[in-house]
């Protein structure tokens, strides 16, 4: 099994590769630096980037290889994936109105690939190497094993504290008359349902806690939580936040990606 990181020579893509490196290190997988040749990217920049990453990977005993593909990206990536077993593809994205527009990530999540995809939005390149807190945002107790494994792998790799940020949706009107007793019962049920993940985290020896919030606007709550807590990276299940809402002009994930003050990974499992 291999981990793929798509690179284009940009500082954002190179920053994203650090997450892939860490992931590959803990999972003991080979990291493949993948570049599909195109007119936009400067090949010298790409090669310089590969050189820097390879040096770093060797220094940390991580198996690494690089692959250059040619031709139409869709066909090239499909063909390549048919020849190797891939665990996860990491790719960075741009800060456009829609976060996947005009980027390789758009292609990856549109074509039906049988791999997990981590779309990394680099906002801040200051703390890519050292992460002390990683947050996984979920809806109530809806957490898949794959998502948790991805989160736990990164938390272990960075020896960071983990936080599951569980959001329970509630209307604005109900939020102002929330019954504390009822709320506590609801939260303790969520805690109970997430108990086995907590046990797993203990087995993996990383600190983890659950933080709850009631909200009528998920994106706003995650953005606020990012600022108030001292988390360095947020992982969100991308499909969940991609649904449209009545009277909303955009999907919550777009707002999250555009306005977050830290790096975000939108994680698409192949089960979604």
């Amino acid at each position, binding site marked *: 099994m291999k981990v793929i990181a798509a690179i284009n020579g940009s*500082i954002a893509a190179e920053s994203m590769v650090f997450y892939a490196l860490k992931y590959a290190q803990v999972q003991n997988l080979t990291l493949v630096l993948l570049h599909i040749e195109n007119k936009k990217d400067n090949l010298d920049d790409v090669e310089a980037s590969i050189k820097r990453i390879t040096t770093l990977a060797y220094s940390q005993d991580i198996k690494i290889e690089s692959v250059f593909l040619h031709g139409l990206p869709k066909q090239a990536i499909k063909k390549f994936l048919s020849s190797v077993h891939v665990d996860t593809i990491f790719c*960075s994205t741009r800060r456009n109105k829609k976060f996947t527009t*005009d980027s390789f990530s758009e292609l990856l999540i549109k074509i039906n690939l049988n791999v997990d995809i981590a779309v990394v939005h680099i*906002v801040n390149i200051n703390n890519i190497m050292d992460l002390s807190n990683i947050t996984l945002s979920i809806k109530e107790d809806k957490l898949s094993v794959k998502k948790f494994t991805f989160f736990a792998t990164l938390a272990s790799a960075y020896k960071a504290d983990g936080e599951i940020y569980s959001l329970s949706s509630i209307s604005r*009107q109900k939020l102002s008359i929330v019954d504390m007793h009822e709320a506590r019962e609801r939260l303790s049920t969520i805690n109970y349902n997430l108990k086995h993940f907590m046990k797993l985290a203990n087995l993996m020896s990383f600190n983890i806690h659950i933080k709850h919030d009631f909200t009528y606007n998920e994106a*706003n709550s995650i953005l*606020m939580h990012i600022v*108030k807590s001292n988390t360095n990276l947020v992982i969100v299940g991308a499909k969940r936040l991609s649904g449209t809402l009545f*009277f909303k002009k955009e999907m919550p994930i777009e707002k999250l990606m555009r306005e977050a*003050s830290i790096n975000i990974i939108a994680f698409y499992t192949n089960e979604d």
Partner: protein
Amino acid sequence: MQTFKLNKSQLFEKFRTSEDGLSTKESHNRLANFGLNEIRDTNKKNYIKEYLKQYIHFFAILLEVAAMLAFIANVYMPNAGNDILAYAIFAAVFINATFAFWQEYKADKAMEALLRLMPIMVKAMRNANVEIIDAKDLVPGDIIILEEGDRIAADAVLIQNNTLYIDMSTLNGESKPSKRELECDSNVSRALDARNMVYAGTSVISGSGVAIVIATAYATEFGKIATLTRNIEKTLTPMQKEVIRIVHIFTVIALAMGVIFFILGIFSDQTLLVTAIFALSLIVANVPEGLLPTITLSLSLAGQRMAQRNALIKNLNSVQTLGSVTVICTDKTGTLTRNEMVLKEIKLAGGENIIISGEGYSSEGEFYFDKNNDTSDSRLDELLLAGVLNSRATIEDKKLFGDSTELAIVGASSKRRINTAPYIRIDEIPFTGDRKMMSSIYEKSGEKILYAKGAAEVIFDKSSTYIDSMGNIQPFDEEAKRRMQAYAEAFENEAYRVLAIGKNLDIKEDGLTLLGLVAIMDLPRGEIKEAIEQCKTACIRIMMITGDNQKTAQAIAKKIGLNYDGVLTGEEVELLSDEELENRLKDETILFARMASSQKLKIATALQKCGEIVAMTGDGVNDAPALKRADIGIAMGTGTDVAKEVADMILLDDNFKSIVSAVEEGRAVYFNIKKFVTYILSSNVPEIVPYILQFFFKIPLPLSVIQILSIDLGSDMLPGLALGSEKPEKNIMKRPPVGVNEKILDREVFRRGYFFIGLIEATAAMVAFISFLLVHGWEYGTVDLKDPILHSQAMTMTLLGAVSCQMVNAWTMRSWEFSAWSVGWKSNKLLLGATALEFFWILMLLGYEPVQKIFHTADIPLSDLWILLPFPIILFAGHEFYKWRKRVAKGML
């Protein structure tokens, strides 16, 4: 390693840049990846859509359907006034929608105020040239050039520094210019504390520098404040929730009665059209059309009264929330205290204690010595001279310039008419946080002298001698030092800021001759004790939040009579988890010392999770998130635009007393709304009962729908408003805050409105109607009267029965618990005016033909009006007796 701890070459490597800056191509690439360096107000509402929404909620739809039915009825029964009814209902819908929209969707300009702090253009290195570029185009790795007066557009680490001072008040509330360095302390962990960094939203006060951009847009510290300010959305205020609840209750009652009587009508001998019109009439009779505008207008009047008491309400819905406030989190400086540092006491090194009288920085005041001798005055003058010469502050024509502590010394020296003219300043060793002292070197008649002032412990360590009580120089030995330390400590325990003052003829900071101590304090406001006492009786907890140390916080609390259970410092708050903080705040009153403004948000959130209704004061940009989070955000009148925009209320005089006055008004508003809701409900009964009686008994129609509207949207409106402007009742601040579960529309309101006063009014209306008909020859069973004038006259009697009772109802309803006499007959001018207008309205109904035509009324012989007389008297006496019984039951007599 954190970015701000990297050296220049490491920074260049990490951000793939150099002193030449980025190339145009690279900056474009990065712009695509990191986005524009801008913070946008994306939460702006579509006001047209929001306004239209007001027409599609439950209550509005109910009225709109009723209006449509009235139009249909008008087609089948023209000239019955149903068209006028339809227009009137549509007018009510329009008024309600407009008022509700005005209430809810006033422009939130907080983000606009925030964004004004960001620059438009910046100087940056691009392609090895200095270029002026759009601030939005900055990307991580850009090299920016900073000069005096510049606003800074991104977070950046300095790589060149020429005595750069920046104004960081937007981020940390600190008004003093912050000196920047090229290196940062190794123990700094937060980017905001790194002295080698500059930040977006701040500005350059003096000096210049070059810096490498490490974060843009939302990733900056300023972006984080913007995120918090914009994304905190308040839950509904108690008033909004109550209005929704009231609307639901009335809608359900109206619909239920309409449907029940429509079904009954189908099984009766009435035609379907008559039954439908009857059901429609019942719905209209049940809906208090004027209630919502009356509530809004009443809140608006309360807002005006508050403004007269120096509390400017921005969000009308918050008026009633003030009545529910259970905790006031208040800043100390300027709110509890005068924000005016005053030198109150001096301890000369010789041992004399001197108390200084006089207000603030006034040059009038006396110096009272506890003991003195021939040398005391000259030693005091020398100490004040040393203090004033070693200050940068000045007071000219009552205008203050400089640091508040230094102003206190300058103010005191002006009381002694200290002459500084012969002294020429030669040099200065400035104050720094590390040194905790400053010195100035002066020359007088060719002789040089160094004056030093600073933290007592620092000056003590640097002193080798002191001037004793006889004016002689003595060695500052351990015993003398211990004695002075004890004096300093005693001052500190009294919440004084203590400075020691010394001099040295050798022009060195070591080997000083100690002159004495000055004790400076920001004095509590005069009326503060009374206000705090009021809060105690009103069961409101006060939590003081101050940047001062624990000792000062405790001493001030003691001085102003503020009781507390414990003290938490900013560091302790930081270490507590949300749950632990909630547990501490659940029952305890805490003093918060050494707090940063950014921690207020955590406190407000924790208190709210404990079920408290929180009022929070603040003035800085970084207070904005907490002000928005609090149930009542209170900005100081002297605060920043951002704080004022985000707050619900602005304190025009920055005075805590004004918050308490606003709370009192808030409580009054709750009871006033209760009073006029009861008042308005009362008139619903004489509107409904005639229809029901007409349906079940063989009597003519006692009241037309248009007459109902004349009550709901006419005669009830002004007295209702007048009730809304009643002054606070005398026990209002002696009861607990209005609980979140205390509803305006509760059983008591229904009991009084519907089943007590309402029934009296209905009886009045029906007795007036039937008696009038009987006196004029009507026989029971005659439904269709041959004489339309007689019918109009009888309906006028019904209307007058209800209106006359309502006139008296307004006067007895002025106090919810106390007698009508106790509130004074002339104290509510609006009610006097409303009553006069109501009389005028009755005269119009009785004698002015155009009005009679619209409202189906007619002249009534004076001899028949006596029928109306007993009921208002019964109502007044009955309600007064009802309230007396209540007072007896509560032990209030």
